[in-house]
């Protein structure tokens, strides 16, 4: 575990949070008598400052719902969520989101996409473009300022998404299966590059994924969810968190292999 994560202060507190959705008539199997489906049932969780925490589970387990609740894009039906000590009711400027489908505006160039958050904040054009230049370099996209999203590969588009999310120097990064839409090789490259960025910035990260390997490679702790209704099954400390940067093949580390087997059997018992 990194030294920052070892510190005691807490960035995100999730206390007894529940969330229910109205179910469409076509999928009533998962609904209860009142036609509602429970996505999250009495979930409590803490993310430490500087920590890289993954939410892992099968699709439909409520992990993305929890992320969206923390982001302030959804409202909980019960319980409370706090970010940096204040309850979340709406999106915060210092908690920025990286989307699964990259979430870029297709009519904007790379530079204008990255500048979007500071444009919202009313920062002057020259100033925000100066900041953008710095993050373009950080994600390795110098020279692509004038390109449009459709001219870039998926991996490069998500680099734009990451740079945009960093523009406000957030205290919390919310990542919704950010590498889920990428092919295996691009995905590993982006994991590595993003870890490097994270190490240099020391931002707290809440990361949603359905890949066991990815969760163990990138994060300090992995929160394993059960399927519906979404509850936390177990929180596992990644055995390779300490040397995820050092070794280029943590995936063959015996501790990694046994942790992966443990999570896999946990998820299998869910079915």
């Amino acid at each position: 575990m990194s030294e920052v994560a070892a510190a005691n202060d807490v960035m995100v507190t999730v206390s007894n949070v529940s969330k229910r959705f109205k179910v469409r008539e076509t999928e009533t199997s998962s609904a209860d008598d009142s036609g509602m489906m429970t996505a999250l049932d009495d979930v409590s969780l803490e993310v430490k400052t500087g920590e890289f925490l993954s939410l892992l589970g099968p699709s439909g387990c409520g992990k993305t719902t929890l992320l969206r609740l923390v982001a302030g894009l959804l409202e909980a039906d019960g319980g409370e969520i706090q970010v940096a000590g204040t309850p979340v009711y709406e999106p915060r400027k210092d908690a920025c989101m990286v989307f699964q489908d990259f979430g870029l505006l297709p009519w904007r160039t790379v530079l204008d996409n990255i500048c979007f958050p500071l444009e919202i904040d009313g920062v002057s054009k020259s100033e925000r473009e100066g900041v953008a230049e710095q993050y373009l370099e950080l994600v390795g996209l110098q020279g692509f300022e004038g390109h449009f999203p459709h001219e870039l590969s998926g991996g490069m588009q998500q680099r734009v998404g990451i740079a945009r999310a960093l523009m406000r120097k957030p205290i919390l990064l919310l990542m919704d299966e950010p590498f889920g839409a990428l092919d295996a090789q691009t995905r590993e490259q982006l994991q590595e590059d993003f870890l490097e960025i994270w190490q240099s910035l020391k931002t707290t990260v809440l990361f949603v994924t359905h890949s066991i390997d990815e969760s163990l490679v990138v994060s300090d702790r992995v929160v394993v969810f059960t399927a519906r209704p979404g509850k936390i099954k177990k929180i596992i400390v990644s055995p390779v968190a300490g040397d995820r940067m050092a070794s280029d093949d943590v995936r063959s580390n015996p501790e990694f292999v046994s942790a992966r087997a443990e999570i896999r059997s946990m998820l299998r018992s869910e079915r």
Partner: protein
Amino acid sequence: MAVTEKTVTPAISRSGEPATISDYFKARPNMIRVVAVIAFFIFWEFAGREGNELFMSYPSAIIVAAWIITADGTLIEAFSASMIPFAIGMVISIVGGIAFGVVMARVWLFEYIVDPYVNALYAIPRLALVPLITLIAGLQVGGKVTIIVSIAIFPIIINTYAGMKDVRGNLLEIGQAFCANERQIFFKIVLPYAIPFIMAGIRLAVGLAIIGMVVAELFTAVTGLGGLIVRYANAFATDRLFVPIVLVAIMGVLITQTVQFIEYRLSKWRVLERQRRDQ
């Protein structure tokens, strides 16, 4: 107009012989087109000279007629008499159509109230309203503008409305996630997204506005290019009759091409995004 020229591939017939003459011409569509147009004009010229000059004219006579009515100022006067209401009508249609479409898409009460009227007016042939409009708004610029707007505004209203309703939820969520306010979401996400739709509506409106302009002048028959058409037809001046017709055709092509060019520039992201998704 973008005509995609096929690359000339050496067509080999079944027996292994080299390309035939028909293969050679098949690969050169523009050559055939140009030859066809020239052939048409030559045929017209000679057939026209044989026919009755009261009913049919021919290219060389039309060019001479064009020169005469340009030199005496008739054509230019008629042209500006047409273009002024056309320009005013287009501006009103674009500004009013976009504003109407935006309000319709964003204010549900307004949408519910005007929806039946927009659909009903769009469905009936608006040319049927021309006599009524001239009755109310007169034969001059005001009447012409009213006719043009009544025809041209609808595709702009409908496309603006459709474009704004089409914005996907995940695009709006980007705005929400980055704490954009309602105004910012509208100007930075919804409106840019709708622009390709709006431009397509404007392109349709231009074609309709030209029809509206000529029809308005045919009815009123006093001024403009449409007025010239009626006047020369009544005088059996067939050679002159063709001049305003050709001018309207050229104008229509030029304006539509210009709008199409702007539309392409503003909608390029959409086309390319779709191509990429289809790959």
